[in-house]
């Protein structure tokens, strides 16, 4: 897969504070990356730099093949950005808000009505197009704000603390929306310090601390992006289970207890599929076989605790 967002050597200073210090990473298309870190870590600054709203001192930012620093206005056409303190034009209807956004992003006039309808349908607000933004609930305002950000169907969406202030139901709705947008081909970065909500939809994680990137990883794997914790459950007891797994070179830290086995598997999802195929070919009665998803909280804490600077690597 190709990189949709690549950042290298990013440096951003505030007086007396280096907010971003040599930050670099690349993100593949059609992923949702959780941008996490403590308050003041530089998350919002990083997102604003990627969005072309703030200019860094040094570094390069490339979004969908465009150099954001050299062409900030052009790059806005390939991304949507929702700031944490977003606002809406309360006296405009949802349709007017979306039409204005589409026009201000230079969408051809003939395509705007369709784009507005599509964005409204994606965010489930198509039945309220004539309603004024000022009359919407917090959750609906959030949906309208995201609809505005994606009305031009950008390949990249940047969201800064999107769930802040939302009730649990609206948060679930937000997670579903983000997953749907990813399925439709968008690459999304979501900044938040509420890890539980990121866990539901994120595929990757970037950890910032003190302006530095301290961790970048694919979620559901350990730091190298290739090792997964796997659990296996048999439908009925089979004495060969432990021996068959021990025979596999990629299996480590094996624990077998009754019908259950858990182990670390060093390999990508394709190699994991091959292992499963071999076990079934050996007529092992496999009922469940799943890579365990590590808690985002645990991953974050381990990443922050190490405190070191991660080698930003291309994740597979």
């Amino acid at each position, binding site marked *: 897969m190709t990189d949709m967002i690549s950042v290298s050597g990013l440096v951003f200073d505030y*007086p007396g504070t280096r907010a971003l210090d040599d930050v670099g990473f690349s993100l593949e298309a059609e992923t949702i990356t959780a941008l996490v870190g403590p308050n003041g870590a530089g998350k919002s600054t990083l997102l604003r730099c990627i969005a*072309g709203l703030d200019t860094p001192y040094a570094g390069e930012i490339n979004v969908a093949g465009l150099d954001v620093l050299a062409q900030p206005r052009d790059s806005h056409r390939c991304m949507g950005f929702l700031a944490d303190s*977003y606002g809406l034009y309360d006296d405009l209807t949802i349709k007017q808000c979306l039409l204005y956004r589409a026009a201000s992003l230079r969408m051809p006039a003939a395509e705007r009505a369709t784009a507005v309808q599509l964005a409204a349908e994606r965010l489930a607000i198509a039945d309220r197009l004539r309603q004024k933004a000022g009359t919407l609930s917090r959750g609906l305002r959030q949906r309208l704000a995201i609809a505005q950000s994606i009305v031009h169907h950008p390949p990249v969406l940047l969201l800064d603390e999107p769930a802040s202030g939302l009730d649990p139901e609206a948060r679930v709705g937000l997670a579903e929306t983000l997953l749907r947008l990813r399925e439709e081909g968008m690459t999304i970065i979501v900044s938040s310090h509420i890890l539980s909500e990121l866990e539901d939809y994120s595929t990757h994680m970037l950890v910032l601390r003190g302006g530095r990137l301290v961790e970048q990883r694919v979620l559901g794997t350990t730091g190298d992006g290739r090792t997964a914790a796997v659990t296996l459950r048999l439908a009925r007891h089979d004495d060969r289970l432990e021996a068959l797994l021990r025979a596999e070179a990629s299996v480590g830290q094996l624990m077998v207890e009754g019908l259950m086995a858990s182990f670390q598997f060093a390999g990508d999802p394709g190699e994991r599929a091959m292992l499963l195929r071999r076990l079934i070919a050996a007529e092992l009665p496999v009922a469940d076989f799943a890579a365990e998803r590590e808690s985002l909280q645990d991953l974050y804490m381990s990443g922050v605790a190490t405190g070191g600077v991660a080698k930003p690597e291309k994740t597979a």
Partner: protein
Amino acid sequence: MNPELRRNLWLQFSLTRLLLSPAAIGALLTLTWVVSDASLAAVAEVARAMYYLIVVLWGTRRAADLVAEEIAGGTWDGQRMSALGAWQMSWGKLLGGTSYVWYAAGIAFLALLGCYWAAGTPPWQSGQAIQLLRLLGTGALAQAVAMLVSLTLLRRLAIRRRLGVSLSQVVGILAGLLASGQLDGGIVSLFLPTIAWYGRIWDGELFSLATLAVFLAWSVFGIYRLMRVELKFQSGPWAWLAFALFLMAYCDGFLYGAIQLAGSGPGTWLILPFLLVVALTYLALFLEPKDVVRYRWLGADLAAHEFRHAWVLLPQWLPVYLLALLCAVVLGLFSDVGSEGLRLLSGPFVSMEALQHAHGLFLYPLAIVIYLLRDVLVVLFFNFGHGGRRGDATAFIILFLAYFPLTGILVSLEMTSLIPILAPYPLAPPLINFAAGLVESAALAWLVYRRLALAGRFAPAIA
């Protein structure tokens, strides 16, 4: 249609508002007609007053609030994330944001035209057209200036406060009053029916209308340039320099006759432009944000010979300062400031008579430029410190004290030899002025460099 204009039209107009203005203005004019025994002149006066009130008072408030309300409403980032160009954003916002004001003012304006017509003076007769154009231009200028000031304050973050909006509105109103002839007592149109400019005699009304149009164009250009900065377009610092050159040429035209009559040398031509450029350097210095990080970037780029990038980072005051320096050097070379120079250089502490006996007065502009450098460094020093947000105010007070009360005290105590410690003094020997100014500038340059270096010792964002 410009999307920004259309959005503003959506926001500004509703059926109720469309009906409300003509109803209110019509009612007031009808009342005037009734109580004045059907006097067309009275109705015209009320229509004119209403037009001014709407377009200048209300219009400047709207124009000053255009960007501030976007920031307060959290929509400014969304606008900056659009793909609209700076020009589209500028005129779409200025025209669209004030469109309802112009709708209401337009009704009053049409009523005024109707009164003239009914009185047997069609708008195109006997200079009426110029006056009517001036009415329109006054409103446009007042609103453009208000928006220009609000964008300037936005760069200093002061627009976030309502005070910033009010300040922008007040400046816009002053510009409107000046353009309408209310602030200068109508000097141009009433007492000076003709204007001598570069030796030619111009019709006063026509000249003031042309001047209004030119300054309106500069205001709109200023809005466009500041919008470019907001939208992250990269621009060099030549706009303020261009305005300085225009102002120099414009103002010098009024001195033409006086200089010709006095038979002064060519250096005399530069004395007024020189003083204007000095004033514009101070103005740019105080109006521009003085971000220590940006100055560090500039230093790093210059050190790395990244001159193209450094050009974009140059502060607006610097090219204008260099222009002032050039003027001072040329004035020194011509060894003459002329009688106009004597008049312009005299001040509260030095009379024209005293100046006539001053030695080496032609070198005094150079001393002014050296002290200007010192003052620039004072402003930068206080802005680069921890109390940077109040740096401008602190520097302004210190410079004000040095130039006025303290210098005045030394004059009254007849200790004028000490004045060069505080400010350039035309009666002091040029070398004393130069030496004092240069020593102070050197000391301040070192202090500023230290603060720049300190700003580069970064504390981590999280301890």
